[in-house]
C-alpha cells in the first residue's frame, strides 16, 4: 500500500513535470520569436527539456516497473551530449543551416527507431479487442513513416547545403514520388487491416516500410534546388515535430504531444512565412517550378562597363554616403570580415556607410544578419531594405557585393519574370552603382539582371574576397 502510494506520487510528479515542460516549451517558442527575449526563450525551453528527461528517468513506470538500464541510458545521453555540444560549438556560422538539418534528421531517426521497437509490442488485448486498426498502431506507423522521411530528407538537405550532393532535376520525379507516397499509405492500410494475434507477426512489413520511407525521403528532397533547402529544412522540421507527437499519443505523454505538435504547427507557419519572404508558394518550392531557369522577356540593352580598383577606391573615398548590398556571393566568398574592414576604413575617412539587408539575401533567412554580426558589424549599420529604399536617391555609391536577385529591377519592371512582385532593393535609384561579382553569372533565380547594363553601373569582376582585399589596400594607400 505504502509503496503503491509512493508510486502514485512519483507518477503525479512525472505528469506535473511534463505539464511544466510543455508550458516552458510554449514560453520558449514565444520568446524565441522576439529579438530581445529570444535567447532566454531558448534557455527556458532547454530547461523544460532537461526537467522532462530527468523526471522520466526517475519516475517513469511501465506496468509497475521503473526505467531499467539507467547506466546505459546515461552513457547514451552522455555520448549524445558531447558529440552534439562539440559539433554545435565548432561548426562555422555559415554552416548553420546544414547543422540544423543534421540535428533535425537525428530527431526523425530517433522517432523512427522508437516506432520500430514499439511495433512488435502492441498490447495483444488491444488487438484482440479492436484488431490492428487501432490508435496505437496508427501512431506507430505514422511515427515510423514521418520520422524516416524526415531523417532521410534532412540528410539529403544536409548534403546539398554542404555541397556534397547536387540537384537531380527530372520532371518525372514528381510522379515517381506520388507513387511512392501512395505505396506507403497503402502499406499502412494493409497493415492495419490484417487479422493477427500479435503485431509481431507483421514485423517484416515494418522494415519494408522503413526502406520505402527512406527512398521517399531521398526522392522528395533530391529534385529541390539547393537554395530552397532552408524552406525544406523548416518543413522537415515540422515533420519531425509531428513524428515526436505520435510518440506522445503512443505513450500518452503530454510533453511529447505538446512539444511535437507545437513544433509541427509553428514549423509549418514558419515555412510559409519563409516562402512568403521570397514571394513564392510552398507548392512551388516542393514541385520545383522555379529554380530550373526562368526566362526574361526583356531584351538586353546597353552594355556592361567595368571600373578599375583604383577608380573604385577614389569614388568610395570621396563619397559622403555609401550603401553596401551584401548577397549570397559575399557568404560564398567568406568576405564578411574584409568587407567590414573596408567599411571601417571609409568611416574613418568620414564616409557614412550603411548595409542594406534584404530579407532573403543569401540562402537562409537572416543569413546576412548572421554573417555580418559574425564580422562584428554594428547592428545600427544594418538597415532593412524597405527602410533604406527611400534613402537611396541620396546615396553616392551603392556597392553590390555578390548580390544579384535582390537588386534585380525585373521584379518591378517585368510582369513575366519569375521574381516579379518580390520587394527589392531599388539599387538604380543610387547615384553610382558598383557591382562586385566573378563574372556575368546569374543568381539563384537564374535570370538576367538589367541593372548590370544600367548607365550608372560599373562592374568590378573577381572573387568578392580578393577584390575587397585589393580595394582595401588601395583605399589605405590613398
Amino acid at each position, binding site marked *: 500500500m505504502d509503496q503503491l502510494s509512493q508510486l502514485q506520487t512519483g507518477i503525479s510528479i512525472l505528469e506535473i513535470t511534463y505539464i511544466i515542460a510543455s508550458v516552458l516549451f510554449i514560453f520558449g517558442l514565444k520568446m524565441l520569436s522576439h529579438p530581445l527575449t529570444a535567447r532566454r526563450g531558448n534557455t527556458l525551453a532547454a530547461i523544460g*527539456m532537461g526537467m522532462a528527461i530527468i523526471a522520466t528517468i526517475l519516475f517513469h513506470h511501465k506496468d509497475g516497473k521503473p526505467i531499467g538500464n539507467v547506466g546505459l541510458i546515461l552513457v547514451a545521453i552522455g555520448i549524445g551530449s558531447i558529440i552534439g555540444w562539440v559539433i554545435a560549438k565548432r561548426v562555422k556560422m555559415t554552416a548553420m543551416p546544414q547543422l540544423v538539418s543534421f540535428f533535425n534528421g537525428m530527431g526523425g531517426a530517433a522517432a523512427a527507431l522508437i516506432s520500430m521497437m514499439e511495433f512488435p509490442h502492441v498490447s495483444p488485448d488491444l488487438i484482440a479487442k479492436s484488431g490492428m486498426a487501432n490508435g496505437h498502431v496508427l501512431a506507430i506507423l505514422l511515427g515510423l513513416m514521418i520520422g524516416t522521411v524526415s531523417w532521410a530528407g534532412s540528410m539529403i538537405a544536409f548534403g546539398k547545403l554542404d555541397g556534397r550532393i547536387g540537384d537531380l532535376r527530372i520532371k518525372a520525379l514528381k510522379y515517381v514520388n506520388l507513387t511512392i507516397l501512395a505505396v506507403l499509405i497503402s502499406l499502412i492500410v494493409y497493415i492495419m487491416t490484417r487479422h493477427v494475434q500479435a503485431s509481431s507477426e507483421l514485423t517484416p512489413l515494418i522494415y519494408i516500410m522503413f526502406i520505402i520511407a527512406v527512398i521517399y525521403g531521398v526522392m522528395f528532397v533530391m529534385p529541390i534546388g539547393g537554395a530552397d533547402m532552408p524552406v525544406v529544412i523548416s518543413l522537415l522540421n515540422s515533420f519531425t515535430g509531428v513524428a515526436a507527437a505520435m510518440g506522445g499519443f503512443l505513450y500518452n505523454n503530454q510533453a511529447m504531444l505538446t512539444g511535437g505538435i507545437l513544433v509541427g504547427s509553428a514549423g509549418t507557419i514558419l515555412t510559409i512565412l519563409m516562402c512568403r519572404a521570397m514571394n513564392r508558394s510552398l507548392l512551388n518550392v516542393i514541385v520545383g517550378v522555379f529554380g530550373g531557369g526562368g526566362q526574361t522577356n526583356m531584351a538586353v540593352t546597353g552594355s556592361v562597363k567595368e571600373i578599375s580598383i583604383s577608380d573604385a577606391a577614389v569614388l568610395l573615398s570621396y563619397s559622403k554616403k555609401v550603401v553596401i548590398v551584401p548577397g549570397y556571393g559575399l557568404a560564398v566568398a567568406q568576405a564578411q570580415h574584409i568587407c567590414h574592414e573596408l567599411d571601417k576604413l571609409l568611416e574613418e575617412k568620414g564616409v557614412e556607410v550603411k548595409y542594406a539587408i534584404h530579407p532573403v539575401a543569401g540562402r537562409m533567412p537572416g543569413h546576412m544578419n548572421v554573417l555580418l554580426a559574425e564580422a562584428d558589424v554594428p547592428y545600427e549599420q544594418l538597415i532593412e531594405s524597405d527602410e533604406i529604399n527611400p534613402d537611396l536617391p541620396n546615396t553616392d555609391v551603392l556597392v553590390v557585393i555578390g548580390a544579384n536577385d535582390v537588386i534585380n529591377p525585373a521584379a518591378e519592371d517585368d510582369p513575366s519574370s519569375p521574381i516579379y512582385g518580390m520587394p527589392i532593393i531599388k539599387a538604380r535609384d543610387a547615384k553610382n552603382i558598383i557591382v562586385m561579382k566573378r563574372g556575368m553569372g546569374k543568381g539563384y533565380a537564374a535570370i538576367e539582371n538589367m541593372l548590370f547594363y544600367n548607365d550608372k553601373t560599373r562592374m568590378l569582376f573577381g572573387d568578392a574576397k580578393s577584390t575587397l582585399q585589393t580595394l582595401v589596400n588601395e583605399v589605405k594607400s590613398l
Partner: protein
Amino acid sequence: MGNILGFFLLHREAVFIVILSIFLGIEVISHVPAILHTPLMSGANAIHGVVIIGAIIVMGHAETTGAMILGFLAVVLGTLNVVGGFVVTDRMLEMFKRKKQ
C-alpha cells in the same frame, strides 16, 4: 466508422489538446521578424528533440540485446537533437545579442 468514432471518444481530450497546441503554435510565432526565422527554426528543432523521452522509455524497458542496441542508438540520436539544437540556437542568438548594445 464505429471504430474511428470510438477511438475519437476514447482520445477526445488528446485530440483536443492537439488542436489547442496547433493554434498555440501558430499564434505564438506568427509575429516573428525575418531575422529570427533561422534561430526560431533551430530552437523549434531542439524542442522536437522531446522525442528522446520516448527513446528513454523504450530503452528503459528493453529486454533483448537487439532492442538494447537500437534503444541506445535512439537515445544517442535524440540527445544529439536536443543538445546540438539548443546549443546551436544559443550560439546564433548570442551573436545577435552582442551586436545590440
